[in-house]
């Protein structure tokens, strides 16, 4: 490594600073520090690559993730005054602490942790592309220390990067790309149905037991019950309150790892009463298959033509279905012909589902959704 005292001017503040130059390895290009120590410490970035020292992310992404915003002065006199103050501050505080707004607001960010590169990225140390070769004029051939490759597409915004923009965290194409990735990350939206307080947990391997799940989920609020389905490698967590379920969903979605297994967290499917296997609804479980089915129908569609309307959100209406009280004339006649006359794909399933344990929210929800019933009723009525 070579040290050159006051060898170059800082590319941000234009003051001379001590330049270090070194070769990062075989077949790599020489690297050198580009900005001075004070400028680097204000932003807590590397003097060479201008990436954040903790996460290795561009300044813009880091600031976005940490909700940090520092307004560095851009005009000459202001900048000098500011840097003078910073120099004094850094001299007094010791030179290892990050300065600027980043130093004040140190909150670990989940988004940053996920975006951060976990393995070293040696590609940036490769030699630059030989500009003569690109023009077809390189006469050095094999001896040429530069890379004989075509550069990336010049219309690509990533090829237009600029050191100052990267430092100040504005118009950074790399950061834009990363932030776009963040916005496109899957988000877990809570269902509109406020009665849903259960979460589905997928990928539950054999060595994860109920205790482990409870140990993770009790931090978000009181857990009503946990149903493990080892055959399906899944579990359902029922919370007592909607609020704690929401917290658990946002706190565990895409980041729940138990015993080395990455678990998938989703909301339980909404189907009114069963509540994704809600605790001890024994009456429903022992429901008689055939007579129970028509009785449940009117509860779902009190108004059959409002197809796209909101599902019934009244919590009281669903747990106690008014058995055949609201519109009995519609149902009993159409159903028997349905099973025989129209060989629709839904009828066998419908009957099976009635026989099934109601703790299976997935099946129940697909069959129990209003449109399916609507279709059958309409077909049945037309027949």
């Amino acid at each position: 490594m070579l040290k050159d005292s006051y060898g170059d001017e800082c590319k941000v503040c234009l003051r001379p600073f001590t330049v270090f130059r070194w070769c990062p390895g075989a077949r790599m290009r020489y690297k050198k520090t580009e900005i001075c120590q004070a400028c680097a410490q204000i932003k807590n970035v590397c003097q060479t690559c201008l990436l954040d020292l903790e996460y290795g992310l561009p300044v813009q992404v880091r600031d976005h993730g940490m909700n940090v915003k520092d307004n560095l002065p851009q005009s000459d006199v202001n900048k000098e005054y500011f840097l003078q103050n910073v120099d004094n501050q850094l001299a007094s505080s010791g030179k290892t602490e990050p300065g600027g707004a980043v130093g004040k607001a140190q909150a670990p960010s989940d988004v940053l942790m996920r975006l951060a590169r976990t393995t070293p990225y040696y590609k940036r140390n490769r030699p630059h592309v030989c500009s003569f070769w690109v023009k077809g004029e390189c006469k050095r051939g094999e001896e040429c220390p530069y890379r004989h490759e075509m550069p990336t597409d010049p219309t690509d915004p990533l090829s237009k990067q600029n050191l100052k923009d990267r430092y100040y965290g504005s118009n950074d194409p790399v950061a834009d790309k990363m932030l776009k990735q963040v916005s496109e990350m899957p988000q877990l939206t809570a269902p509109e149905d406020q009665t849903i307080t259960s979460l589905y947990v997928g990928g539950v391997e054999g060595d994860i037991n109920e205790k482990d799940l409870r140990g993770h989920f009790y931090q978000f609020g009181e857990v009503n019950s946990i149903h493990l389905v080892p055959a399906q490698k899944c579990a359902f967590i029922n919370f007592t309150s909607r609020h704690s379920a929401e917290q658990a969903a946002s706190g565990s979605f895409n980041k729940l790892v138990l015993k080395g297994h990455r678990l998938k967290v989703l909301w339980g499917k909404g189907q009114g009463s069963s509540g994704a296997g809600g605790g001890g609804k024994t009456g429903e479980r022992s429901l008689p298959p055939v007579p129970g089915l028509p009785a449940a129908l009117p509860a779902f569609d009190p108004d059959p033509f409002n197809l796209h309307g909101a599902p019934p959100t009244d919590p009281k209406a669903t747990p106690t279905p008014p058995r055949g009280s609201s519109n009995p004339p519609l149902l009993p006649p159409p159903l028997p012909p349905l099973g025989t006359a129209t060989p629709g794909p839904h009828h066998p399933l419908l009957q099976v589902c009635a026989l099934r344990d109601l703790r299976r929210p997935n099946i129940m929800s697909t069959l129990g959704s209003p449109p399916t019933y609507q279709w059958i009723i309409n077909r049945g009525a037309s027949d």
Partner: protein
Amino acid sequence: MPKVKRSRKRPPEGWELIEPTLDELEAKLREAEADTHEGKRKVEALWPIFKIHHQRSRYVYELYFKRKAISRELYEYCLNEGYADRNLIAKWKKPGYESLCCLRCIQPRDTNFGTTCICRVPKSKLEVGKIVECVHCGCKGCSG
């Protein structure tokens, strides 16, 4: 600079045998001096000079030490008249420097870490397939 005239001393025996070759090399050197720098890198400009200088000294060295074709007097005469580089030839006599390209490449004071030029690194010590070309004289390796 104009060519300094040779001393009035009569050239020793055998001079007329080696004179045409030395004159030819001299002419090549003048040509290289006048050559344009267009299209050359900054470091490349002096490479031909170093190369011809090495060639000329080598010619005299081989004649006297290897082929033993010229007399001691003629060899001394060539050195005095500036046809061969006395210091370069002195290096060639030492083990390990038998084919040294130029004196600049063994000048440690000129390098950052007090080492010699990359062309002084033996091929066996370099990584396989690495092609070197030193910046001083364009040498591609003079250390066996």
